[in-house]
């Protein structure tokens, strides 16, 4: 298959059309960013099922809820930073508490709208959404998984937040892949350290694993495409196997993947870990890759974190043996 970089946002837009053909209940709600979210593709095909509310994200969510209460399956689109933060009250009150069958699609997640600056970086969207009862939170990695996820979340009768990346990366999966919500995917088996990654940071994890391999370190790479419900079993199994964990996300290290896995392992299998992500700071304007490099989120930082956490594990084991 082609290793050409693919923009996952187009995969999202095309998948919406496929879904729209399959299911007449699917409605797409826009808040003036259809082109940027690539959902304009759906509008071209199904103009009557594309509902535009203008620059009114809070109302887009409420309209989505009202549509859902009337038997529709609305996909509400805007940038991730607005989808989760500006609309939080509406999502909490009407969608999550009301168990509305709304699919909230946050485009340009993390630092993938890099040049726009901190106003447009969604560094806390997954933390916000994960905190809400009844909410499923997913963040697909590549174009294939994104396409799959658009269909998979339609099968859930309840609220979903889907964080989408804007990164252009080569595909991870081939066409035969089938995503299973709530089930993390082991992309590379290893025995020395586990790299848990989400969204397009799975690429960074795979690249880091390659580098680690050249140093004789066997890294297990797991794509946690579903942040909630978390695959506790899969995460604990790998953490117990390697005894050293690194989480990798384009998000704040607070409350997202790093937070979720720290909570999970703290309760079920305390394991030395390091978190790659924004360290409680707003970012600034530049390309996504420049920002990730500057803010400690590049594959080289994952490699360093993996080596460090393995040293900690060694010290812990040494201390236990010494005792």
């Amino acid at each position: 298959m082609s290793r050409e970089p693919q923009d996952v946002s187009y995969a999202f837009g095309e998948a919406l059309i496929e879904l729209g053909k399959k299911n007449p209940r699917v409605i797409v709600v826009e808040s003036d960013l259809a082109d940027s979210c690539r959902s304009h593709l759906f509008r071209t095909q199904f103009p009557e099922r594309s509902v535009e509310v203008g620059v009114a994200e809070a109302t887009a969510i409420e309209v989505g809820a009202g549509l859902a209460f009337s038997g529709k399956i609305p996909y509400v689109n805007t940038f991730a930073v607005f989808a989760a933060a500006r609309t939080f009250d509406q999502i909490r009150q009407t969608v999550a508490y009301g168990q509305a069958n709304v699919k909230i699609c946050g485009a340009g997640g993390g630092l993938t709208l890099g040049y726009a600056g901190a106003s447009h970086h969604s560094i806390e969207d997954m933390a916000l959404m994960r905190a809400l009862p009844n909410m499923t939170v997913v963040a697909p990695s590549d174009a294939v998984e994104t396409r799959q996820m658009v269909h998979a979340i339609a099968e859930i009768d309840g609220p979903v937040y889907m964080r989408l990346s804007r990164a252009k990366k080569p595909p991870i999966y081939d066409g035969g892949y089938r995503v299973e919500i709530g089930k993390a995917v082991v992309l590379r088996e290893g025995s020395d350290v586990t790299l848990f990654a989400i969204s397009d940071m799975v690429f960074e994890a795979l690249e880091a694993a390659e580098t680690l391999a050249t140093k004789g370190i066997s890294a297990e790479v797991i794509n946690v495409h579903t942040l909630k419900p978390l695959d506790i079993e899969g995460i604990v199994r790998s953490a117990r196997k390697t005894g050293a964990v690194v989480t990798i996300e384009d998000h704040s290290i607070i409350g997202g993947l790093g937070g979720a896995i720290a909570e999970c392992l703290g309760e079920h299998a305390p394991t030395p870990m390091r978190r790659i992500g924004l360290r409680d700071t707003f970012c600034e304007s530049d390309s996504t890759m420049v920002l990730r490099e500057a803010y400690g989120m590049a594959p080289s930082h994952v490699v360093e974190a993996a080596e460090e956490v393995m040293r900690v594990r060694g010290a812990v084991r040494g201390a236990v043996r010494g005792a």
Partner: protein
Amino acid sequence: MAKLDEETMAKLKHMAYRARWHTVDTARDHLKMHFGAVFSITEILTTLYFTWMRYDPKNPDWEERDRFVLSKGHAAPALYAVLAEAGFFDVSELRTFRSLHSILQGHPCRVKTPGVEVSSGSLGTGIGAGVGMAIAGKLDHASWRVYVLLSDAECNEGSTWEAIQVASNHHLGNLVVLLDRNQMSAGGPMTSRNDIEPLADKWRAFNWAVQEADGHDIRSILDGLEWSETIIDRPAVIICHTRKGYGLPIIETRNEHNFMLNTEQYHQALRELAEIEKEVTVHVA
């Protein structure tokens, strides 16, 4: 003026009395209650539920039903009383209001209470969901209509005006807002905090059809509802002029938002209800 036979009018007045009685009976002398907000919408709700809207209490999800959204969720006890009297659930549930495992939460919850369409309570959210429902109805060319009961204080919320603007831009002739204009928010008169006048002009400026009504006069409310059916190309708002706590002097004179009656006040409320009961005649066939 809306034509209403004597029997129906008597029934509606009796239901308004029953709704107030249930509210007092639910609170008695030990529960805090948004009495004022509840009593200002009692006639609006009884008119909607007992002579206007189409619904099936035994099949709350009936597709052809009219939809009602209580955007001012803190007046939930008024809705619960009316839903119970309409047969969505047993009136004995009313005394479980706000207690553990009750189907009647402090603010409306659509997954717990039969007949509640939207979970509300955070002001300025319910109307947006109502707009979404009306868009769905329009997409399906459905004959059902959406009624949203909004408080005047909710017009202080920016999200309310977002939804209002979206509604008129989508030409939602199947959406009617009943605006409870009791002129008070939680902290006191709206004129002394964030005034919303000229209210009717604002709605007109947002391309809504506007009518005003006396929110405690059933005929006036019905006039508004009948008028709303004639508006087909845009949403309609009926600004219902009301009084917070209307109906029982012991409540209205308290001039408070959320409060508890002491035992003596509770007994006084019952005496005042007994006086109303004497006036409302019911001719049940």
